[in-house]
């Protein structure tokens, strides 16, 4: 540890690959769902904007969305919105209320809640 000691660079990532952890998964899902919602919002506003040009224009645009791909994407977005919300609430609980959680259990519950909302969306006849 003298001044002249040769050191290799810091080792990175080795044990994360060996041990996937719930907190990491939560942050990743939070980020990805947030990006998905950020990408969706402009399209959503464009769709709403067509209403300004009359009901017919909006209806014709909505007609384009009546296919399996868009329905699946809608289900994904609803799930992502719910997931983003519950994972955000988890972060707020940890940071503001000093909640010492059982991370794996809480994150699993958050993911289950997000998927449950998506399921309700499907069952609601969307």
């Amino acid at each position, binding site marked *: 540890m003298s001044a002249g000691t040769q*050191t290799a660079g*810091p080792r*990175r990532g080795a044990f*994360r690959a*060996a041990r996937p952890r719930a907190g990491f998964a*939560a942050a990743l899902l939070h980020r990805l769902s947030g990006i998905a919602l950020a990408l969706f919002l402009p399209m959503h506003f464009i769709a709403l904007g067509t209403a300004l040009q009359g009901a017919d224009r909006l209806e014709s645009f909505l007609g384009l969305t009546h296919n399996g791909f868009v329905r699946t994407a809608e289900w994904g977005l609803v799930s992502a919105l719910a997931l983003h919300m519950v994972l955000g609430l988890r*972060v707020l609980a940890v940071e503001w209320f*000093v909640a010492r959680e059982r991370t794996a259990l809480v994150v699993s519950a958050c993911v289950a809640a997000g998927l449950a909302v998506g399921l309700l969306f499907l069952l609601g006849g969307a």
Partner: protein
Amino acid sequence: MNAPVPTPSRADPTVEAVPGEALTVRIRRDDGFQTFTVARRPAQTILDVVTEIQRAQDPTLAYRFACRVGMCGSCAMTVNGRPRWTCRTRVAAVAEDDGLTLEPLRNLPVIKDLAVDMEPFFAKWTAAHGAFEPGDAPPADFARVAPDSPARRAVDAGIECINCGVCYAACDVVTWNPDYLGPAALNRAWTLVNDVRDRGQEARLEAVSGDAGCQSCHTHMSCTEHCPKALAPTFAIAGLKRATARSALKRLGARHFRRSA
């Protein structure tokens, strides 16, 4: 790295080996993994295993330890993928299929084999203003600090850190952003933010803000889950986030007040 401790020999072991039971130990060295076989002994710790390998099989193996009782924090390594104190980790609790994989701590430069350079870790402690700042004119009288006051309790919650580097090695944000101050330095800063005697708060809050500071924490909770002292740097970092936000709002309000006055 070689403290003068009694040298166990295979002929006269300090603790009797369990007949017929052996432990396969993979150790990451400078040129890849090397495998050793060590006898199982009752109440054997990971540090016992590394010491036995170095004393009886390969004296060139480099590692670091001092107290052997969980006080100094110098023997931390990555054991089967988790950063741990090796002196307080029993082989029986972590061995998988009679095997162990030992690696140096993550996120720190490796000096040799299992010994890492702690210099960047302590440099960040300094960068986070981790030293008490009495100010130019320390008060003449003692500060009266009620033991059950919220600030004192917040200090108590984080003051027992012994700088072992386990949280730093567990932190993904340090891996992504090598400039990130890390959980230990930020935890230390939070204990000082709650010290009513300290006169360096403004500079400290500025030091722990920004891209390398508390706002970069993603709340993965790795530091809190891995801390051998059961401290919670995540909550300390959350406290710093609130304190820096409050400080920024105060500055903004003061500027607005000055402009409108």
